């Protein structure tokens, strides 16, 4: 499934410019080191972190995008960096567990 289609299904709010990519899987973590060690290329990262190092990790691993939960809003500088790296960021009011269940219901495994 493509990321924009998934975002529409789950009513995610786009924070950056859109960069549509195929969703290969999901990884849920708030630790940058954990993401680097365990996430896979194409994964959608679900996190509460809004630090620029999350963008750095997503870019390094070629993740398809980031969903920031609990209505956290990254700063303008982080959004600019994400756009330069072509990493789309979405936000949602849901928490990580709620997001995980919605992703599962949407068919992401």
């Amino acid at each position, binding site marked *: 499934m493509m990321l924009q289609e998934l975002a529409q299904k789950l009513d995610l709010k786009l924070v950056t410019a859109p960069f549509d990519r195929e969703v290969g899987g999901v990884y849920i973590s708030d630790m940058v080191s954990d993401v*680097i060690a365990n996430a896979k*290329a194409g994964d959608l990262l679900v996190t509460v972190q809004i630090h620029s190092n999350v963008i750095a990790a997503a870019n390094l691993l070629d993740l398809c995008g980031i969903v920031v939960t609990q209505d956290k809003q990254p700063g303008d500088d982080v959004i600019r960096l994400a756009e*330069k790296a072509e990493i789309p960021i979405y936000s949602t009011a849901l928490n990580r567990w709620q997001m995980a269940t919605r992703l599962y219901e949407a068919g992401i495994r």
Partner: protein
Amino acid sequence: MSSESRAPQYEMVNVRAGHVVIEHDVRSRAVRSWFSAEPVAPVEEYWEGRRLWRHWGAAQSFQFDVRDTASGEVIPFRELLGLMWYGCCREDSPVRRIGELAQEQRVSIYVAITYETADGEPTQLPREKAAVLNRLFNDRVRDRSKKILILPDLFGLYREMSYGQIMIDFGLTAIDEGG
């Protein structure tokens, strides 16, 4: 976007969770960091010769080795503290300015930050190991027009960086901070 599949030459193996422990010598003000695989980062101060090392901070992190999938050779990366993305560097720093230019060509620059020597002296990742890291991460990238370029610390970032700029989980509890 162009993508093609090819077998990666390298894979990350022997991933060990732990902490980057940062400490300073009370007398000389030298700072050094090292990796602890203990479940809880040690915080005790201790004498080492004429130096008194005092705990300054810790960050959750991990260590890993890299295995050549063809030969089976395992290359340890125990000197690697973490990677610093150009976007996390100061806006007026050379690495940030070079990184901005490179990113326009879809090349993302990271700088490999290594642990200091026992005396707190800076070190650099050997060029051969930087080449291995570059291959490890670039082989994962699906979009072949995009490149990751990991450089040794040719910029002397160790002199001006803060540990929070490196891709380790420093200040993890401060999750409300942006940028």
